[in-house]
C-alpha cells in the first residue's frame, strides 16, 4: 500500500515538473527551487519503492545480507534527508527574500544547492558508520535502534528552523510591510502560506510517531493518517506548490484557451470564415492576475500593465 502512495506521488510530481519546464514564463528562482524539491521527492519515492519491493518483501535477500542492500539503505536515508533539506532551502530563500532584502530577487543559488543536495550526505554517512560499527543487522532493516536518530534528529532540527523562519516572515509581512508595500506583501503572503501549510504536515509525523493510541478505533485512524502523511508526501507537495498555485492555473488556462482557439480556427478556416480569427487572438493578451503571482512579476517580460509599485521599490527605496 505504501508503494501505491509513492507511485501516485511520482506521477503527480512528474506532471508538475513537466508543467514547470514547459511553461517558461513561470520560471524564476523560486520555481527553480521547486523543481529541485520535486526532483528530490521523485528520487525519494523511487528509492523507497525499490527498498520496499526489493528488500523488505524479500526475506531470502535479507538472510543473504549482501552489501548492496546496505548501500541502498544509505541512499534511501540520503534522499529522505534531501527532501527535508530542500524544504528548508525554500524557507531560507523566502526569508532572505522578504525579511532580509526587500523583494529583490537575484540571489546566488549555489549555497542552496549545497544545502539541499550536498549536506544530507553528512547525517547519512554518520548513520552508516554508526550502524556498521554498533548495530550491523541484516540489511540495516531494524527500526528498533536509536541510531536512526542520527538522521531524524537533523531533519527535525531543519523542520523547526524552517518553521521559525516562516513564522518570522509572517510577522514581518503582517506588521512592517502591511502599510508600505501592500500589494507585494499580499503576493508574498500567498507564497509563504503554501510553505507554511506544508512544513507542519511534513513534520507532524515525527511528533506523533511515538504516541500510538491504545484504543482500537483511534489506532486505526492513527495508522491511516500516518500512512498518508508518510507515503503521500510527494502528492501533497505537488498539489500545494503546483496544482493549487494561481499562476500555474492561469498559465494552464491560457494554454487551454490557445489550443481551443487553434482548433476553432482550423475548423473555421476550413469553413473559410476568417473574420473570427482577429477577435480570437485579442483574448490572449489579457494580463493575468497580477496580484496572485508568486514570483516577481518583472520576470514575465512586460505582459502586464502598470507595475508602478514595483518600479518605486526598484528605485532604491529601502526600509530598516
Amino acid at each position, binding site marked *: 500500500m505504501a508503494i501505491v502512495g509513492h507511485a501516485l506521488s511520482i506521477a503527480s510530481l512528474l506532471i508538475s515538473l513537466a508543467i514547470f519546464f514547459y511553461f517558461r514564463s513561470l520560471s524564476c528562482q523560486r520555481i527553480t527551487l521547486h523543481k529541485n524539491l520535486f526532483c528530490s521527492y521523485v528520487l525519494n519515492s523511487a528509492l523507497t519503492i525499490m527498498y520496499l519491493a526489493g528488500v523488505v518483501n524479500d526475506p531470502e535477500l535479507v538472510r543473504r545480507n549482501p552489501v548492496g542492500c546496505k548501500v541502498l539503505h544509505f541512499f534511501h536515508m540520503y534522499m529522505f534527508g534531501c527532501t527535508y533539506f530542500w524544504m528548508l532551502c525554500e524557507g531560507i530563500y523566502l526569508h532572505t527574500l522578504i525579511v532580509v*532584502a526587500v523583494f529583490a530577487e*537575484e540571489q546566488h543559488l549555489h549555497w542552496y544547492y549545497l544545502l539541499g543536495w550536498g549536506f544530507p550526505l*553528512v547525517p547519512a554517512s554518520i548513520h552508516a558508520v554508526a550502524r556498521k560499527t554498533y548495530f550491523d543487522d541484516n540489511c540495516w532493516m531494524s527500526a528498533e535502534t536509536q541510531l536512526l536518530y542520527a538522521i531524524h*534528529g537533523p531533519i527535525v*532540527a531543519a523542520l523547526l528552523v524552517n518553521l521559525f523562519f516562516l513564522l518570522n516572515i509572517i510577522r514581518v509581512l503582517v506588521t512592517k510591510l502591511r502599510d508600505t508595500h501592500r500589494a507585494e506583501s499580499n503576493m508574498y503572503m500567498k507564497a509563504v502560506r503554501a510553505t507554511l501549510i506544508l512544513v507542519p504536515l511534513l513534520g507532524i509525523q515525527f511528533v506523533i510517531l511515538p504516541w500510538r493510541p491504545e484504543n482500537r478505533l483511534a489506532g486505526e485512524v492513527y495508522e491511516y493518517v500516518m500512512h498518508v502523511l508518510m507515503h503521500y508526501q510527494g502528492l501533497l507537495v505537488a498539489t500545494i506548490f503546483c496544482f493549487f498555485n494561481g499562476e500555474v492555473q492561469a498559465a494552464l488556462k491560457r494554454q487551454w484557451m490557445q489550443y481551443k482557439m487553434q482548433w476553432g480556427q482550423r475548423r473555421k478556416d476550413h469553413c473559410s470564415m476568417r473574420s473570427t480569427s482577429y477577435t480570437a487572438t485579442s483574448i490572449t493578451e489579457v494580463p493575468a492576475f497580477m496580484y496572485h503571482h508568486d514570483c516577481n512579476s518583472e520576470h514575465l517580460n512586460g505582459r502586464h500593465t502598470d507595475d508602478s509599485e514595483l518600479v518605486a521599490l526598484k528605485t532604491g527605496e529601502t526600509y530598516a
Partner: protein
Amino acid sequence: MELRSGADPRRNALLCLVLVVSHCVSVLGCGPHYQHAIEEFCLAKFKLDMHELDQRHWCNWEDTVELYGELTNCTYLVAVKMGCFWPNQLVDEFFIHVHRHYFHDCSLSGRLLRDPPNRILGPFIVVPILVTLLMTALVVWRSKRSEGIV
C-alpha cells in the same frame, strides 16, 4: 618378500578384527542408546527452559549461556556414564540440530544486537544536529551577504 607377504594378510586381519570389535562396542554403547539418552534427559530440560524464556531472547547470550552450559554438561555426563568418548559425532549432530532450531536467525556478528551505551550514542545524535544548525546558519549568512545589491 615371501615372508612379508605372508605377514601382511595376518596383520590386516588382526587390524580388521580390532576395528570391528571396537565398532561393535561403540555401537552398543554410544549409538542410538546414547542419542536416546541425551534427548530424553538433556534436551527435554533444555526445551522446557528455553520455552520459559521468551523467544525474542533466544539470541541473547547472557540469557542462554547457563542453559547452554547445562546442556553441554549433561551430554558429557551421559557420555561418561555410558563409557563413550566425548565429544563424538552424535553429540555434534545433536548440537547442530539444537542450533538449527533455536539459534538459526541470530546475527553473525554477535548474538542479540543492542544499541551502544549513551556516552557513544549521544555524540552520534548530537553532532549531526549541531552540524545541521551550523550549516543552516552558514547558508543564511551567505545568502544575506550575496544579496548586497538592490
